């Protein structure tokens, strides 16, 4: 299987200028690979830097040391220090990301948010809408809500719309940050099924799963991240 | 010349001032439709009474000229009479009310109905020379727009007319394009007169006293009224002929005869009307109209 994501010696620290220049090490010397059709779970205690690692892979956090390479349009592209346009192109075609929260776009109906994601690589608008309807149905979003903007939904409903959007996009690499947080058992199982579906479709997945049951159900490999100690700046 | 000028130079203005105005006029003729700034002088009449036109007339007037002055087409209104008398006094030139006899015609609001000749000059009194002023208050900007021939704004004005009234409702000071270049305000003449400006044999000079601008349309210059393809320029049509001289295809004034709605339409150009009546034309109300309107029969 093709290696889709390759991290080598990745590290990240934050310098908090507003707190007298305190340096916080978030991730230290992390290496991992994720192949097509494989799900890699990031493990480790809370605060170990799992979310930071995902955000570096996505290009949301800058990479201070090491290398993050992503297979994009047939070749490996380095994310560390990449030009914003390169990162934008990788996100547009290769990298998907499901965060814990839905950043709502005002006024756009739930079904359109999901359909847009399903259609964003071009193609049939009708098919994209069908896919959006399938995902919203699977995730138990009542049909009467589809035409409404999710800003007014409950937290759980918003999260499910968020998951639907994340899974609607057909990207070869999918990053999942606690996709099942705040979901009930039935919906958790739906997410497990969706992840399995993606794996079968050859998608490489890197995720954070707080829930041990889910993790063991979907993960082919668990990479433990050790907490790094905080250091004061010199 | 010194004989009759007691207290005034010939035609009121001093010779230096006249030379300055003539230079502005020559420049205006050289660049048809372009507004030439000039050092407008105080005249013994208020702004709005034709100070610009009077200065242009004073600068081009010679001893042998015959002057006609019209206001709203009439030779007998206060403004026309006083300007005619002014030049009679300060220049001693002959004056006339007959278009055909005049060499210089100073006008406010009308162009005579009779076709003008090459040996005649028409001098317009202009209140606001800038056709773009309606939408663009900045002088620096309107000058740039003229320099670059950016005249989209004129059509914005016409668009507004159609949007509001269903047709181009501008009936006075209807903007024209002179010699395919400068968009020009024809002064508050009715748009009925716009076609007379096109390829006119006479020299047309425009003077704006308060705004200190002179512009010109040389003889035989193409003058086109702006319009839209689907709302072409059209002049006013009058259903009835002149009630006094039976003329058709001329500009008519409405005259209210009493407070019970009785009215009549008569030639705005009084000289034209009188000439026709003298030639035997007879309008429907010629015999019944009040003396004040029909004049001497």
């Amino acid at each position: 299987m093709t290696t889709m994501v390759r991290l080598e010696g990745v590290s990240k620290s934050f310098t908090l200028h507003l707190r007298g220049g305190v340096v916080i090490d978030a991730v230290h010397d992390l290496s991992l690979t994720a192949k097509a059709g494989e799900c890699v779970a990031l493990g480790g205690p809370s605060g170990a830097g799992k979310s930071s690692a995902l955000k570096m892979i996505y290009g949301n956090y800058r990479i201070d040391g090491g290398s993050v390479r992503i297979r994009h349009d047939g070749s490996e592209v380095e994310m560390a220090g990449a030009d914003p346009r390169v990162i934008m192109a990788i996100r547009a075609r290769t990298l998907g990301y499901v965060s814990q929260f839905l950043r709502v776009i005002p006024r756009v109906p739930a079904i359109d948010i999901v359909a847009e994601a399903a259609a964003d690589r071009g193609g049939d608008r009708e098919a994209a809408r069908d896919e959006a309807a399938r995902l919203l149905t699977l995730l138990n979003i009542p049909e009467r809500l589809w035409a409404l903007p999710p800003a007014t939904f409950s937290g759980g409903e918003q999260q499910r719309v968020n998951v639907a959007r994340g899974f609607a996009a057909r990207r070869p690499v999918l990053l999942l940050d606690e996709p099942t947080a705040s979901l009930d058992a039935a919906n958790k199982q739906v997410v497990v099924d969706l992840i399995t579906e993606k794996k079968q479709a050859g998608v490489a997945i890197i995720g954070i799963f707080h829930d041990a049951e889910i993790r063991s159900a979907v993960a082919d490999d668990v990479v433990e991240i050790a907490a790094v100690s905080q250091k004061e700046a010199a | 010349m010194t004989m009759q000028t007691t207290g005034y130079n010939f035609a009121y203005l001093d010779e230096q001032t006249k030379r300055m105005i003539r230079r502005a006029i020559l420049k205006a003729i050289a660049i048809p439709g372009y507004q030439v700034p000039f050092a407008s002088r105080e005249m013994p009449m208020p702004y709005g009474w034709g100070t610009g036109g009077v200065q242009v007339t004073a600068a081009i007037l010679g001893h042998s000229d015959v002057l006609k002055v019209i206001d709203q087409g009439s030779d007998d209104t206060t403004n026309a009479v006083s300007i005619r008398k002014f030049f009679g006094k300060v220049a001693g030139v002959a004056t006339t009310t007959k278009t055909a006899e005049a060499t210089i015609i100073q006008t406010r609001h009308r162009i005579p109905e009779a076709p003008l000749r090459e040996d005649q000059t028409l001098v317009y009194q202009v209140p606001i020379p800038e056709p773009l002023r309606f939408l663009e208050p900045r002088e620096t900007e309107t000058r740039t727009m003229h320099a670059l021939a950016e005249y989209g704004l004129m059509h914005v004005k016409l668009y507004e007319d159609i949007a509001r009234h269903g047709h181009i409702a501008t009936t006075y000071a209807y903007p024209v394009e002179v010699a395919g270049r400068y968009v020009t305000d024809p002064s508050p003449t009715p748009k009925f007169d716009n076609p007379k400006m096109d390829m006119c044999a006479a020299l047309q000079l425009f003077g704006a006293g308060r705004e200190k601008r002179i512009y010109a349309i040389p003889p035989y210059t193409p003058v086109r009224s702006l319009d839209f393809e689907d709302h072409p320029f059209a002049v006013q049509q009058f259903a009835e002929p002149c009630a006094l001289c039976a003329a058709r295809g001329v500009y008519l004034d409405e005259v209210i005869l009493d407070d019970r709605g009785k009215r009549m339409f008569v030639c705005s150009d009084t000289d034209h009307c009188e000439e026709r009546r003298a030639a035997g034309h007879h309008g429907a109300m010629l015999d019944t109209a009040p003396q004040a309107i029909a004049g001497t029969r």
Partner: protein
Amino acid sequence: MTDEPLLRARGLTKHYGERIGCADVSFDLYEGEVLAIVGESGSGKSTLLGLLANELPATAGEVLYRMRDGIVRDIASLSEPERRLLARTDWGYVRQDSREGLRMRVSAGANVGERLMALGERRYAGIRETALTWLDRVEIARNRIDDRPTDFSGGMRQRLQIARNLVTNPRLVFMDEPTSGLDVSVQARLLDLVRGLVADLGLAIVIVTHDLAVARLLSHRIVVMRRGRVVETGLTDQVLDDPRDAYSQLLVSSVLAA
């Protein structure tokens, strides 16, 4: 996406006597890209916008623009007619104060149609049809076409400005604090509209804003300015979620949930 930038700023500098308006600003902008310039008032972001839009002469540096014919020109070298033609065809400018961006004394339809008439459109029916299409796109009711902007709300005026600018299909639009002074719900509607237009038309936008939430929602990339200089630049979510510069951190931490 084409590989050639639409606009390149190179070492853009503006001095007002001794005072620095902005200093040594460089970036590339591509078609379909939204660039936000953020900073406090007095940070030089409006000066920068003025330089980019060719409304202010630069003290040093240059702005290179790829014209519609594909030829890259230094905008300072354009003649006055070229400059004005560019500004009313291939560029748009949405002003903070709609009274500066609209003609308040003529109808909405004439405001939208003005650029078309300036380019020589002489069919009334065609102008009106195009104006109606654009009113639809910016969500202004068709029956308001003959009303003047003085009768419009703040949000409607800004949407009208957008229609007036986009009618010639410009490739680049400058926006100066387009949402300031609007209610939050009205802001959201406007931003959503702009997002949709960017996606549909592939517009490039340079937007000046002090509102990081606006930058977050609209822009792909961000430039943080302070005292006339760029202190940080990058992907919008990168700069807002992982600000490096001390001032950027202060700016981000001063806003609630940007």
